[in-house]
């Protein structure tokens, strides 16, 4: 094995030797440099493999003396791992920078090589002064690399950088020399043993050392210089600084922390959290891509710093957490900066240029999701473990702050992603992409997935996870260039096979899960069927759609909280991409994502607290929680309620559902929302028996009732058909929340029955209306009218859908109302119950508006020749209608087994079944009988009337009213716009967009805050130097007080 010290030999030797190379032979020099970095990398990789296979950590002595008398280096698993990371980054970064380096000449190539070498040494060295020297090497090399691509800005940034790091280095040197004075040694390990923090002067010396290293990690707010560097230097260099330098310096902090006392852990935590939140807050206001990445990079390092500060809590989990987040940041940030170099446009709105090369867009999305911590990437596991450990140790404030910071990060990252996906790119110039610029990000993109896979292998709770769906999605992605109908078929077949495998066992064992699985998978297959109506490739649709379904399937099959959360996040990611596909979906996709992230964090915190209480991830262990019940229940409920779009958390839904594509709306409405219901149901059956949760349930009940009322009222005042249906979904989910919150047998049964029904009729309505919209080209109902003549299939589907939805007998909706009445009376929630029932009646307003405005009334001239809806939409719709008919005529087929299942948890006040007759605690209901009675009556009356009027003459609509004289402007005769004006006058105040206004105000405040705080970064390098010194002083005074 080659001694690791030869990393220095190779690095410096080659750098020196490059002086011989002819100045013109730049290709040769660049190749030599890459070979040298490759060799350095080979050494570290060789050591990494050896150490992983159990080799001992080695100390490398110099000068023939043992430490502490001479400088020594160390090569342990940490060092091997990190040097490998750095050398890989160096190799790929060097490759990426090939043109720039060659342009700048041999000297620049030398500087780059020495830079990488220096990073290796600061990782390996165990001597404080040697550390200082090589940190200087790195910082001078950095200053040189900043001006690799020389612009006015980069020179300024370089000067600011030198000024700040100069002060930092001076302080570090002072600290080191005094540490030497007090301990008589320069070796870090001996310094740690000497424990000089007990001395008054010694503690100051330690402070100076540690603060300077913290400052090198760019803590907020003393980091203006670093941000300028990220923004102004060549993106390839920024990538190196963010990935390689930051990684190395982080390890330095880790190493040097040994000399500190435990007070420092608090300081680190505070400094880290401040940075994490501060930078991410300022990122919100930032529109320049590279500076934004700088904020994100600084923020991530802050998080890592805080994690280090939490070492006493995290214990032996520290390494796993820090490594996963560090590696994620390393891969993602390098990748993003590299992409920034390819895009060559610093305005994040112009990143839509990535769409010229879809692979780049995929990479971009991947890296952003890595940063946020989505599965299956390493950071997901790291954040999960971090939260679990924090909550186990009752560090709730830190936990909350970490989640807050991550959320702020999500705001700007997803806004950016939205721009990249949705903004116009036709006007932007072509990307010029060299092979050497594309290889590094692609490689890192692949590595992220590989790293994610290996990380998941380290997590025992995920050992049962089935990776086949994910592989299937990857496969679908690779055939993305095929026509849509092929992919559609493959997707349907795949889902059918999966459903065939998981549904039967669930039917046997777990009726609740079976119902949801059937909705998710069956609904998925049906909605995908509609996809045949789309021509062309439909690039990117199938992977994300399947991702959502895979996430949903994981949720169903999850047995522990980690699996559940894994599925939940996958589902969120998939649905986000589905939603944002819509033409005007950019803002809605963003708000969906933000609510989802916030909700996911609430869930995460809830799971963390439950883990703290029970010590296990098992989902059923939720039932055994004895402490913090209120908080856990509330957090989880809020998390799930972001998906069910309860009042206050609903503002994302209307836009997201309305602007989505025609077959996506049913996916995200009829199917996706049930994930939240499933979560709430799990929560209630496990935790509903406590007195505390019953109190929350009471609040949730009112919330559900209000949601139903507001949702329905708002739906009644919509002019946009899909928006109307979206508000209707909010209201329906309000009923479900209300029913669930009752936490009684009938409540749960109602909720389940409503879920099934909502799935059926909302899928019908969204599919049909979506198909109609595809034909007529507008969402606005007042622009349609009279379509019954052209679209009888659609009309019948909508008619049945609205009858089912409204709860009018004999269709299935009535069963829901009946159950609801009984449940309300049995529970005693009369007033909120009345509110729910009242809002159920309001539903008639919008249902009538929907069917009347679209299909009835006067026909518009421009729509005289539209065709009926696509057969591919009609097929799933009519299958769903058959479902409605079955469930209406034979409700006992579903309700009886469900009731038996629910009786496990809530045996009281169950329904008694006698054939088709259900007898509840208050009333009785025979779905079957009503269906037959009404059916016979209806048919006979229809026949009778037909007999009497069979000679009726078909007349045109104008013939009677206007005596066959069409008015001048026929469109004015379709009374549809704002038809509930009177109602609006009386009740419109309820649906005044106060909640939207509330969130808008919140957003505005955050933006103003960010705007205010970022005045700190005035651009004056001197001011930044003052901040650096002030930071040190503040830390000192914090320490002594």
């Amino acid at each position: 094995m080659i001694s690791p010290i030869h990393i220095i030999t190779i690095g410096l030797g080659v750098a020196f030797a490059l002086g011989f190379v002819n100045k013109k032979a730049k290709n040769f020099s660049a190749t030599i440099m890459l070979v040298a970095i490759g060799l350095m990398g080979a050494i570290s990789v060789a050591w990494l493999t050896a150490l992983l296979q159990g080799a001992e950590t080695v100390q490398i002595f110099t000068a023939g003396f043992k430490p502490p008398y001479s400088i020594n280096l160390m090569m342990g698993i940490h060092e091997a791992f990190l040097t490998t990371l750095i050398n890989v980054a160096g190799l790929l970064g060097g490759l990426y920078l090939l043109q720039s380096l060659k342009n700048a000449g041999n000297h620049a190539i030398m500087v780059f090589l020495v830079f990488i070498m220096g990073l290796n040494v600061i990782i390996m060295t165990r001597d404080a002064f040697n550390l200082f020297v090589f940190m200087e090497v790195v910082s001078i090399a950095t200053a040189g690399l900043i001006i690799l691509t020389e612009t006015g800005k980069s020179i300024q940034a370089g000067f600011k950088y030198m000024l700040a790091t100069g002060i930092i280095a001076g302080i570090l040197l002072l600290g080191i020399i005094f540490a030497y004075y007090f301990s008589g040694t320069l070796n870090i390990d001996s310094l740690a043993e000497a424990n000089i923090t007990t001395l008054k002067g010694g503690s100051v010396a330690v402070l100076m050392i540690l603060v300077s290293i913290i400052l090198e990690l760019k803590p907020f707010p003393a980091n203006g210089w670093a941000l300028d560097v990220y923004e102004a230097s060549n993106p390839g260099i920024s990538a190196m600084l963010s990935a390689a330098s930051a990684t190395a310096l982080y390890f330095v902090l880790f190493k040097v922390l040994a000399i500190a006392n435990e007070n420092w852990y608090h300081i680190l935590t505070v400094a880290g959290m401040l940075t994490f939140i501060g930078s991410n807050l300022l990122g919100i206001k930032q529109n320049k891509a590279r500076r934004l990445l700088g904020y994100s990079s600084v923020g991530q390092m802050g998080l890592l710093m805080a994690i280090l500060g939490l070492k006493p809590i995290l214990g032996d989990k520290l390494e796993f957490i820090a490594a996963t987040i560090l590696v994620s940041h390393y891969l993602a940030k390098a990748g993003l900066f590299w992409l920034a170099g390819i895009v060559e446009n610093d305005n994040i709105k112009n990143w839509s240029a990535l769409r010229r090369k879809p692979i780049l867009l995929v990479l971009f999305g991947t890296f952003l999701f890595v940063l946020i911590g989505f599965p299956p990437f390493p950071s997901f596991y790291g954040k999960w473990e971090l939260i679990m450990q924090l909550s186990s140790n009752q560090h709730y404030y830190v936990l909350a702050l970490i989640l807050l910071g991550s959320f702020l990060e999500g705001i700007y990252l997803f806004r950016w992603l939205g721009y990249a996906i949705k903004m116009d790119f036709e006007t932007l110039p072509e990307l010029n992409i060299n092979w050497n610029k594309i290889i590094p990000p692609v490689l890192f993109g692949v590595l992220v997935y590989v790293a994610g896979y290996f990380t998941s292998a380290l997590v025992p709770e995920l050992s049962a996870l089935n990776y086949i769906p994910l592989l299937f999605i990857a496969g679908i992605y690779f055939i993305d260039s095929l026509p849509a109908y092929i992919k559609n078929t493959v997707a349907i077949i795949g889902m059918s096979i999966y459903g065939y495998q998981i549904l039967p066992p669930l039917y046997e064992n777990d009726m609740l899960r079976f119902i949801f699985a059937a909705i998710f998978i069956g609904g998925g297959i049906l909605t995908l069927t509609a996809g045949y109506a789309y021509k062309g490739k439909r690039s990117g649709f199938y992977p994300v759609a399947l991702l959502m379904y895979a996430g949903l399937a994981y949720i169903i099959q999850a047995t522990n909280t980690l699996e559940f959360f894994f599925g939940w996040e996958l589902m969120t990611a998939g649905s986000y991409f589905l939603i944002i596909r819509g033409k005007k979906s950019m803002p809605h996709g963003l708000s969906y994502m933000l609510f989802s992230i916030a909700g996911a964090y609430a869930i995460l915190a809830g799971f963390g607290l439950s883990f703290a209480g029970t010590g296990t991830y098992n989902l059923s262990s939720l039932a055994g929680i004895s402490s913090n019940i209120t908080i856990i229940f509330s957090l989880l409920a809020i998390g799930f309620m972001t998906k069910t779009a309860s009042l206050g958390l609903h503002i994302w839904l209307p836009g997201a559902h309305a602007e989505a594509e025609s077959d996506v709306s049913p996916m995200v409405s009829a199917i996706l929302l049930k994930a939240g219901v499933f979560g709430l149901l799990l929560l209630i059956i496990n935790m509903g028996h406590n007195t505390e949760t019953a109190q929350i349930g009471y609040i949730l009940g009112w919330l559900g009732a209000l949601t139903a009322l507001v949702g329905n009222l708002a739906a009644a005042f919509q002019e946009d058909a899909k928006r109307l249906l979206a508000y209707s979904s909010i209201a329906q989910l309000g009923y479900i929340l209300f029913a669930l919150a009752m936490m009684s047998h009938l409540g749960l049964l109602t909720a389940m029955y409503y879920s099934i029904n909502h799935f059926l009729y909302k899928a019908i309505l969204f599919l049909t209306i979506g198909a109609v919209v595809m034909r007529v080209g507008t969402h606005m109902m007042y622009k349609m009218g009279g379509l019954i003549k052209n679209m009888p299939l659609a009309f019948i589907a909508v008619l049945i859908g609205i009858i089912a939805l409204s709860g009018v007998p004999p269709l299935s909706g009535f069963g829901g109302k009946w159950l609801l009445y009984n449940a309300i009376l049995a529970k005693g929630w009369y007033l909120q119950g009345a509110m729910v029932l009242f809002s159920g009646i309001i539903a008639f307003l919008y249902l009538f508006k929907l069917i009347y405005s679209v299909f009835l009334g006067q026909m518009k001239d421009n729509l005289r020749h539209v065709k009926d809806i696509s057969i591919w939409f009609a097929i799933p719709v009519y299958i769903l209608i058959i479902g409605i008919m079955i469930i209406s005529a034979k409700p006992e087929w579903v309700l009886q087994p469900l009731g038996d299942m629910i009786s496990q948890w809530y045996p009281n006040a169950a329904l008694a079944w006698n054939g088709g007759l259900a007898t509840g605690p208050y009333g009785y209901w025979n779905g079957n009988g009503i269906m037959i009675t009404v059916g016979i009556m209806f048919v006979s009356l229809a026949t009778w009337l037909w007999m009497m009027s069979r000679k009726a003459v078909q007349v045109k609509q104008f013939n009677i009213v206007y005596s066959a004289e069409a008015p001048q402007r026929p469109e004015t005769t379709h009374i549809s716009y704002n038809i509930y004006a009177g109602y609006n006058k009386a009740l419109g105040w309820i649906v005044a967009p106060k909640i939207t206004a509330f969130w808008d105000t919140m957003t505005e405040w955050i933006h103003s805050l960010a705007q205010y705080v970022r005045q700190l970064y005035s651009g004056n390098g001197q001011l930044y130097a003052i901040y650096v010194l002030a930071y040190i002083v503040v830390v000192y005074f914090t320490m002594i007080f």
Partner: protein
Amino acid sequence: MKNIFTLMILVAFGIMIYPLVNSFKGNDKLPELGNYYAQPENVTKVNSANLVTAVVVTYRGLDTLGEVSILFLTAAIIAFFLKKQTGKHEVRENSEIFTTAAKVLFPLMIILGVYIFMNGHLTPGGGFQGGAVIASAVILMLLAFPEVPVNQKLLSYMESISGIVFVGLAALGALIGFGYLDNAILPLGTFGKFLSAGAVPIIYSFVGLKVGAELSNILVEFKSVQSNE
């Protein structure tokens, strides 16, 4: 107003470093590390009369390597940073006395520099000081003969050769000695004599050459900017 704020910070910083000054009691005897280096058996192991040189070249040789690379980096960065500045030379006549003196002094200064770094293990001074003297000689020539182009290639070769030798000797220590930068790869010689201390004089000489070349390079780069307007 801003200065008052800055002053407050500075005063606070002063308060912060006051404990350092306050707890400084001077040294009554050598600290542990220095004491170890001064022990006769350890002195003879390195066999360099100048203990500072011993520390600089062997015990803390890696620092020196880093330091050399810093100068190297500085030279390289300044080279590519300022390289686009070459242009017309603005010739200025120097007095004859000055130019003659420079001609005479230049070889003497070079010899002095070489002497300083070659005796670094015996007398005060060493690679850095010697290198600095060489660089001063170069400055002298630059001032005296601003129009004469400097052979930067030579400087650069000198720099590279000495760098490679330094690194090579260091690596040789790891290969055949007891560790990187072990000076015992060459015979230690007699204490206090010119040929002593193993590889120390050689290493220090090359450090001197390298530092001299690098400093000269930096100066030449600045000068070339200078003369271009």
